[in-house]
């Protein structure tokens, strides 16, 4: 591969580190040292700590290159076997297995086989702290080509690619750049939005962690196109690893003459710096983000004047999402037309999704636009955990939508889902099975947004509070006739009247769950029944004595000590102690825990 040596790639994305990947890497390094392999001229082995390789649920992941053997769920104790397998048989027990078949190469694993990596092409392959490795895989080639072009030619190339803002809004990136380039007000700014605050989303964080130079290269090209000499990376404060990697990459780029007074000796100047986000979800909104950079309270403003004209410090500013910027180097290197061949007619290229929830293979996936949700969940994700029935997929959380089974065969792109009252969103995807209560899901997101609403405009501030009160009432059995219609009225007012996108989209989880799962709302209100058996005040639990094997799992899981634990005999739940948390149902492997409507 690189330098013609053998490489052992150890995934050190956030998920794998949490599962002990750093210890695995150390163990492998120690093993190589003791065996003297590293000094051997014939077998030169590098242990590389890479960014997220995607299949987080199976981590830590170790991959041998160039032979391409991928090991899953590796423990430090597996290090000797892995080092032995460099020149021998692959370690069987660490390979990916599905339906009795084992898969050695990464591309053979169905999780990876259907993916198409553009943004993530280097993530999980290179050491993110090593500039040379990025360059060896074509890094900064796009920038070199951009330096031979005029700003107009660069923008034309991006327009040809059809790239649209991948933060979820889908605004054409080329058009945004052309507008900003048209203003003769200096200085201009380029800003990268890395304030990914959605619960369950980690696309941008993983990109910044695993391939920071791709984001930087995209920003430099953008700066050349619009004539900016200063750029800001606004990163979410919780992303400590991403911030470290970006800072390291910026320092390397300065040292190599890629950033600074003269980009690669061209005479163009660009300074980049990181601004740490203040922790507010609303700071992902463009004008609130700029206010936050300026040192003011992170609140949005009315956008009568767009930020491409008057943005950061009242100067023309281009703000792009991490994923959009990380697509730019490939577009410049391979040409806009090549990029436009991927995807659908109106949504070009690829989209990264963070797939989590009740799906077998959670993780980071990148697929061409137009891939169906069914492919994402069942072919790539491997289906629902325990093969339970699918209920809904939540996209673009938390101001996203809940999509039911009937829409799973629609292609995922910017426009198609919108026609059916849903949307693609920024890339977070939460898969839910039949044990999710859609009213409770809506209540959860409204509660989150209620905390995160900045409170500047009335529809968002008051609308969310009232929706939260009504939804809590419904979940606790105090729902009234007319509540559904009232929720819809509040939601539509928020969509029409709110100041920024947070408020305008905040009603989405409520409105779409009403649209697609109205029967659940009605069951809560009219019969005081939670069909999914989630809402504690409406549900009681019982154990099916015939199905129960007396294994003791549910008894151990119960936090209230409400389940009797006789050996080898059916358990019994004491209703006086039961807090209806559902832990026993999650723990039981024999479907012996039943839920029923609780009498008022």
């Amino acid at each position: 591969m690189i330098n013609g040596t053998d490489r052992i790639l150890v995934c050190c994305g956030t998920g794998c580190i949490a599962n002990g990947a750093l210890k695995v890497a150390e163990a492998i390094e120690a093993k190589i040292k003791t065996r003297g392999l590293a000094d051997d001229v014939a077998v030169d082995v590098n242990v590389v700590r890479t960014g997220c390789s995607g299949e987080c649920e199976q981590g830590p992941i170790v991959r041998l290159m160039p032979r391409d053997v991928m090991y899953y769920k590796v423990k430090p104790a597996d290090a000797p076997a892995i080092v032995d397998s460099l020149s021998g048989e692959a370690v069987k027990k660490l390979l990916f297995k599905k339906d009795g078949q084992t898969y050695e190469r990464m591309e053979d694993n169905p999780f990876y086989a259907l993916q198409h990596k553009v943004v993530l092409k280097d993530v999980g392959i290179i050491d993110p702290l090593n500039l040379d490795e990025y360059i060896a895989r074509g890094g900064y080639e796009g920038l070199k080509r951009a330096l031979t072009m005029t700003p107009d030619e660069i923008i034309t190339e991006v327009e040809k690619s059809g790239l649209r803002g991948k933060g979820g809004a889908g605004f054409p990136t080329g058009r945004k750049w052309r507008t900003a380039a048209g203003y003769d007000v200096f200085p201009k700014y380029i800003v990268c939005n890395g304030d990914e605050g959605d619960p369950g989303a980690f696309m941008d964080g993983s990109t910044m962690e695993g391939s920071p130079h791709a984001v930087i290269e995209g920003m430099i090209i953008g700066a050349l196109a619009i004539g900016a000499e200063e750029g800001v990376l606004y990163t979410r404060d919780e992303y400590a690893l991403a911030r470290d990697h970006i800072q390291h990459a910026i320092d390397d780029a300065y040292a190599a003459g890629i950033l600074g007074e003269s980009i690669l000796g061209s005479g163009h100047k660009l300074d980049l710096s990181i601004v740490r986000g203040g922790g507010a979800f609303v700071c992902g909104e463009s004008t609130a983000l700029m206010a936050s950079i300026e040192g003011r309270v992170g609140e949005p403003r009315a956008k009568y004047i767009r930020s491409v004209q008057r943005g950061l410090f009242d100067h023309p500013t281009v703000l792009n999402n991490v994923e959009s910027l990380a697509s730019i180097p490939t577009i410049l290197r391979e040409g806009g037309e090549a990029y436009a061949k991927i995807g659908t007619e109106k949504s070009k290229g690829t989209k990264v999704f963070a797939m989590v929830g009740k799906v077998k293979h959670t993780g980071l996936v990148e697929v061409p636009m137009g891939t169906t949700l069914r492919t994402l969940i069942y072919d790539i994700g491997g289906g629902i955990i325990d093969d339970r029935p699918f209920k809904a997929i939540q996209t673009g959380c938390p101001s996203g939508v809940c999509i039911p089974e009937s829409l799973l065969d629609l292609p995922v792109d910017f426009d198609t889902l919108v026609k059916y009252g849903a949307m693609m969103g920024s890339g977070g995807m939460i898969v839910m099975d039949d044990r999710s209560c859609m009213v409770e899901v809506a209540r959860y997101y409204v509660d989150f947004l209620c905390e995160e609403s900045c409170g500047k405009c009335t529809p968002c501030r008051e609308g969310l509070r009232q929706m939260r009160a009504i939804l809590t009432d419904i979940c606790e059995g105090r729902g009234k006739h007319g509540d559904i219609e009232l929720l819809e009225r509040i939601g539509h007012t928020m969509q029409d009247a709110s100041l920024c996108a947070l408020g305008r989209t905040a009603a989405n989880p409520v409105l779409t769950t009403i649209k697609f799962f109205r029967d659940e709302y009605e069951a809560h209100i009219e019969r005081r029944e939670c069909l999914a058996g989630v809402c504690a005040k409406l549900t009681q639990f019982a154990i099916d004595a015939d199905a129960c094997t007396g294994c003791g799992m549910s008894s151990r899981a119960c936090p209230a000590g409400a389940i009797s634990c006789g050996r080898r005999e059916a358990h019994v739940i004491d209703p006086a102690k039961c807090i209806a948390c559902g832990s026993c149902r999650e723990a039981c492997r024999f479907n012996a825990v039943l839920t029923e409507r609780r009498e008022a």
Partner: protein
Amino acid sequence: MSEKLTITIDGLACECEKGEYLWDVAKRNGITIPALCRSDAFADHRACCRICIVEV
């Protein structure tokens, strides 16, 4: 700010100058539109509380 216009609010003909805020014109003609942020103390915070939004 010199061009004179006549607009109709709730069926009432109102004289105003081009560039004026609708809220001010309405108030002068005895029509109260609720708002929190309409104050000259806020240089650029106009129309941000969104209480004054009406359907047309």
